[in-house]
């Protein structure tokens, strides 16, 4: 149960091997040694994430199976997670996602559809399942990891960008639908974050770290924000970008 100062008793991360997800879970769990449940596909990567989360001061940390691409299972995953927590779920972090390979995916093959399925369809299904559980509890928060890439979709990564634009809009609407239910939905829009997802890519301007995203997320939750940009200046940058003429925008590199 969340306390007056935002400390929580439990966190569920969907996409349990995500580096940003683990950083957020650790930051949330630390003050009250909260229970953390990591739900994902890859046991060994989740094991490593569990270690990280334990090291920063979480209490009990458990891992369980979750596949974003299997929407039929999501309701059950939420119920199982609640059972494992042995208490209410205070925060659900929607951390799974694929970056894809824009060039290859444009060229053909199943990559583009897979990315759209995971990042959008998976998020819709898991987001609704999470919201139903939290609504029953009468309280809780959903943190949705979107991206600045979804704020205005770019030529250079429009497959990923559009999937984030879709899920970003979905979670904003979900947040509005939860007014008065005690459920708080917060969309997080990081810029370039150094994680395994972006490994090997050159740093974009204002590159940041999972810990910085985690700190901004926790602060945003405490302040009841609906949207958080990391770093915060990106909001202003994108206020300008949003209005760039298409011929210029088209040439903005990845």
């Amino acid at each position: 149960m969340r306390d007056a100062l935002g400390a929580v008793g439990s966190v569920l991360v969907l996409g349990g091997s995500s580096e940003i997800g683990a950083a957020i879970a650790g930051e949330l769990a630390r003050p009250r040694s909260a229970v953390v449940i990591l739900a994902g596909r890859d046991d060994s990567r989740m094991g490593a994430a569990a270690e990280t989360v334990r090291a920063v001061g979480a209490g009990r940390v458990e891992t369980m199976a979750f596949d974003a691409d299997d929407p039929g299972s999501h309701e059950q995953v939420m119920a199982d997670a609640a059972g494992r927590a042995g208490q209410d779920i205070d925060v659900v972090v929607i951390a799974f996602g694929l970056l894809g390979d824009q060039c290859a995916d444009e060229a053909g093959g199943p990559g583009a559809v897979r990315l759209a399925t995971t990042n959008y369809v998976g998020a819709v299904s898991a987001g609704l399942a999470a919201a139903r559980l939290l609504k029953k509890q009468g309280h809780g928060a959903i943190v949705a990891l979107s991206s600045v890439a979804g704020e205005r979709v770019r030529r250079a990564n429009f497959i990923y960008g559009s999937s984030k634009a879709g899920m970003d809009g979905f979670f904003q609407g979900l947040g509005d639908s939860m007014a008065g239910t005690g459920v708080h939905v917060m969309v997080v829009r990081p810029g370039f974050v150094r994680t395994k997802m972006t490994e090997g890519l050159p740093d974009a301007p204002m590159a940041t770290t999972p810990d910085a995203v985690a700190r901004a997320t926790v602060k945003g939750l405490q302040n009841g924000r609906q949207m958080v940009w990391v770093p915060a200046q990106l909001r202003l940058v994108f206020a300008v970008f949003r209005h760039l003429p298409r011929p210029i925008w088209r040439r903005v590199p990845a």
Partner: protein
Amino acid sequence: MDRDRDRASEGRRLLSGWGRTAPTAAAVRCPESRTELEQALAAAGPRGVIGRGLGRSYGDAAQNGGGDVAVSSRLDRILSVNLEAGLVTVEAGVSLDQLMRAVAPLGYWPPVSPGTRHVTVGGAIASDVHGKGHHRDGTFGTHVPSIDLVAPGPGPLTITPEGSPDEFWATTGGMGLTGLIHRATLELLPIETSSVRVDSERTPDLDATLRVMSERDRDYRYSVAWIDCLARGSALGRSIVEFGEHARLDELPAGRRSRARALRFAPRDSLPAPPWVPSGLLNRATVAAFNELWYRKAPARREGHIVAAAQFFHPLDAVDGWNRIYGRRGFLQYQFVLPDGEEATLRKIIEELVNHRCASFLAVLKRFGPANPGPLSFPRPGWTLALDLPVSFSGVARLLDETDELVATAGGRVYLAKDSRLRPELLEVMYPELPRWRKVRERLDPDRRLQSDLLRRLPALADPTQAPARPARAGRQP
């Protein structure tokens, strides 16, 4: 009560405590009779039900996210007044304001009155509230000869301190977790006037404050110190110490001595605070300026000042909804008690609070008298300090986590009716009688139909913690 509005709200509603932090949604019911209270218990789903009065507890004691909340707004009848014996029987939703307006003109006063009169009798029993007279009169529960409780297990019960001490003392201070309180009989204190004779003394530092309170409070029914929590260094702990007695008729000015006039109790309906006062209104500068002015304004010593009871007991009730001035995120109140002999710890805590420059108006210090047998009743002989803190003040979480540790180590405890953030693992340390209370609760509520957000946040209320209390790293966030 506005019935239509109540009925329309049988759906879920967001509820929070007085501090307006951590709201949760619950289905609100307003039972009107014993049968309806029984129905409210029977109808509770897996997330249970909890009683609620006027929501003046600061935290989450009267909330139950995802479950039911039984508000006592329709249990608002004063059933009988026995003038010879000085006893009154009321339904649980009767507020102390309502009670005072009814019995003051008859020459009676509730023997215990918290800092606001907008609390219900049910809430006052469930929190076992204390007032400025604790050193002499004890808690609210001490003046309750009998309670009609509807408990989920055994059903309706009349519990008394003599006939059913376990159930009675588990319910007073039991934070609503032993049953729904239906009615109670209360003792009343005879008064000659509705005024209070106040003597006050301005003290230059903490030692003087503690000394003045210890030496003088035995001579008065009421005593309290308002500490200036922004004064530092040699002025640390400077206070205005107030002592009060119900004024006798012959102490009133000659023109006001008719019985009717002397016992009149009709405080003006409070002024509402504007709904959107800027939340920046309270900052260090405004608080410091206010405190300075207030301290300087007070005379070094004043005797025999006659004031209206409402002004003495409930100065904050003059502004309705003052809790909004802390802004959208709300605020919390930290109240703890330290046993006698722990004055050094008290000093250390006040120093910490002052050094962190947490903007707080005044902190209230009081010396408690003897405890009662309630396992969860808060007061213990010693010093209690209460102060308001905006939650937006950075570092407040860590500061209070560290303060919890000092309080627990010194054998003290925090007050559950005010709490919204205690370190859960310290509950059992602070309330060593918890196992005894849990046993009675198991008997009264074997299926755990009574649940609240407080109970979820502090699970040790229901079950012993498996992990050893106080992990080594607790409270020290890197």
